[in-house]
């Protein structure tokens, strides 16, 4: 769809201003990602080579390595980017400010799944690998730390607000971590979900959040 723009990407001009240079760099990074995603969805993650990605993005293979050392790096970048975009999206959704906590949390994960949606096959291909502790893709790995911290801070702010409004008991730092795990669990479920329109995931997400917030509100699980 957008590949034509990708393939016509002009080479970097050497005498560009520093701000401009960063912009160009970012543009190349995005071009590589688009080329890669397209190839992944067409040939599969494993069958795609870095050489093919470079050719598709109209850059030298060596240039590609300046940006991403491996295909896994690309996958991590993609995942981070969808998460960044989800958080940015949330900040602009003013209607959600007035929504109850379960809806706000639902919206975050659902929006993330929306962004992952078109590249489900690719996510599915790297997902298992990502769960290996040694993988650079692992959400708990050092490489993923920066985005992870941003994400935790983002969730913590939302939960802190709910704590202030007494929608939740004081839950502290544990809350964001638990929500993060739930987020991962939902993605896992979503990848496996064969129900029409992945309706099962929507139901699980909704019910899980409602049960959890209600349980916390009513003081634990002993109901």
């Amino acid at each position, binding site marked *: 769809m957008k590949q034509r723009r990708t393939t016509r990407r002009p080479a970097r001009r050497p005498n560009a201003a520093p701000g401009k240079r960063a912009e160009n760099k970012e543009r190349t990074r995005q071009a590589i990602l688009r080329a890669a995603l397209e190839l992944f969805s067409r040939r599969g993650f494993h069958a795609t080579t870095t050489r093919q990605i470079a050719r598709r993005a109209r850059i030298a293979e060596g240039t590609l390595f300046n940006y991403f050392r491996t295909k896994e790096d690309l996958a991590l970048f993609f995942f981070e980017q969808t998460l960044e975009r989800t958080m940015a999206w949330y900040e602009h959704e003013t209607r959600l400010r007035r929504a109850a906590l379960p809806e706000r949390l639902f919206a975050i994960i*659902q929006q993330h799944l929306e962004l992952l949606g078109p590249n489900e096959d690719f996510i599915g291909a790297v997902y298992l690998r990502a769960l290996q502790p040694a993988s650079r893709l692992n959400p708990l790995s050092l490489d993923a730390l920066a985005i992870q911290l941003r994400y935790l801070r983002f969730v913590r702010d939302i939960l802190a607000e709910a704590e202030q409004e007494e929608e939740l008991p004081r839950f502290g730092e544990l809350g964001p971590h638990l929500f993060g795990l739930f987020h991962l669990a939902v993605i896992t479920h979503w990848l496996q979900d064969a129900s029409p329109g992945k*309706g099962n995931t929507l*139901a699980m997400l909704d019910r899980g959040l409602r049960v959890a917030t*209600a349980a916390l509100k009513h003081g634990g699980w002993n109901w």
Partner: protein
Amino acid sequence: MKAEGPRGTLERGLRLGRLGLTLTGSYLGYQFQRLWLDEAEQSRRREGLQRNASRRVREELGLLKGPMMKIGQLVSMQSHALPEAAMAELASLQMQAPGMHATLARAQFKSSLGRYPEELFRTFEPEPFAAASLGQVHRAVSKRGERLAVKIQYPAIREAVQNDFKLLRSATLPGRLTGHAPASIFDEVQRGFLEETDYLHEGANIDFFREALREYGYLDLPRVHRDLTTERVLTMSFVEGLHIADWLRTRPGQGLRDLVGARLFEQFNVQIARVQALHADPHPGNYLLREDGRIGLVDFGCVKRLTPDVEELNWRLVSRSWLEGPAQMERVIGLLWGPHVSRPKARRMMTDLGGYIDLVFPRGPDAGVVDFGKPTILNSLSQAMRRAVSDKLTNPEFAFVSRAELGLYCLLHQLRARVKTTEVWEGVQQRDGGRKM
């Protein structure tokens, strides 16, 4: 079954709910979660518990909504285990699902139609204006400017119902619950349930009734927008009107109430005699009334098709054919209760029924207006139903129609309508050239 009782079953259900049925797909789990999470529902239940006994039965059984409820309903019809009041309460139960917040409703819409509502409609209200069986209804305006009602189903209900049936079949539960429930009952109930979860089927029902009731111009039925309808989203034209309580608050005069009453009475008899199907449970929310006397019919999720026996029985009862001789009497008794019923009991029952029919369809010199504002008819009908239950003279099909009738007369009673019932009824019978014997 005695030792466990419904209570044991119920508690087992709740335990299962705790163990995670609320998270995995289970319709039973939905019910449990809905009752537990929804505070308004909880206080309603508490009030209900204090109100009266038959309400309590309903509250208890409310927990078992879903397949359990329907099975319980079948069992109660067959074993006459429950009093009439409880059966009437049961009849008013609808399949329900948890409410959806705006984000979920929007996501579910997209999951079913592939696009977000704001892409397909000019406007779409994120908050629902009504709860519906298994989902909720949102107002919208089409790209062309037509006002619409968009019914969205809670996600994965179908799968949840299927899971419950797997559970019901695999466990020893069915045997214990019913003692002798044959597999065919489960198939039948499951089929009914899955049908109710399919909005395409509901759309087909609407088309069927629109066609069947076309010549009754005072009725307004929604028009289905096929291009925006799937199994889980039903888009239809918006039907205007007020629920009866709100409509009565506009202080309609006696003439208007009589007109609406006669029309409600007529369309009900048309459904029985000519359509041979009832559009919905006799729930007041399924009729929308207007100041010009027009009537909107909504919610075609649980259409009940009637056997030709019901039409014949209705005709024979109102025309008092059983008074014409023993053979005619036998025919009516056979239609009502089958060939093996005790004759003295059946005759006594026929006397009761005769008295009731004289009330609703008076004939002879005093034939004229029936005043539904007086409680006589309601009392008489519920008495006849009670007698039928205590004498174990019920038949599921007839019981269903009787409850629908009771629902209708409750509406007419609220309206304090005066209706020329016999005249209206005869009009319906003659509309297609009179009934052939």
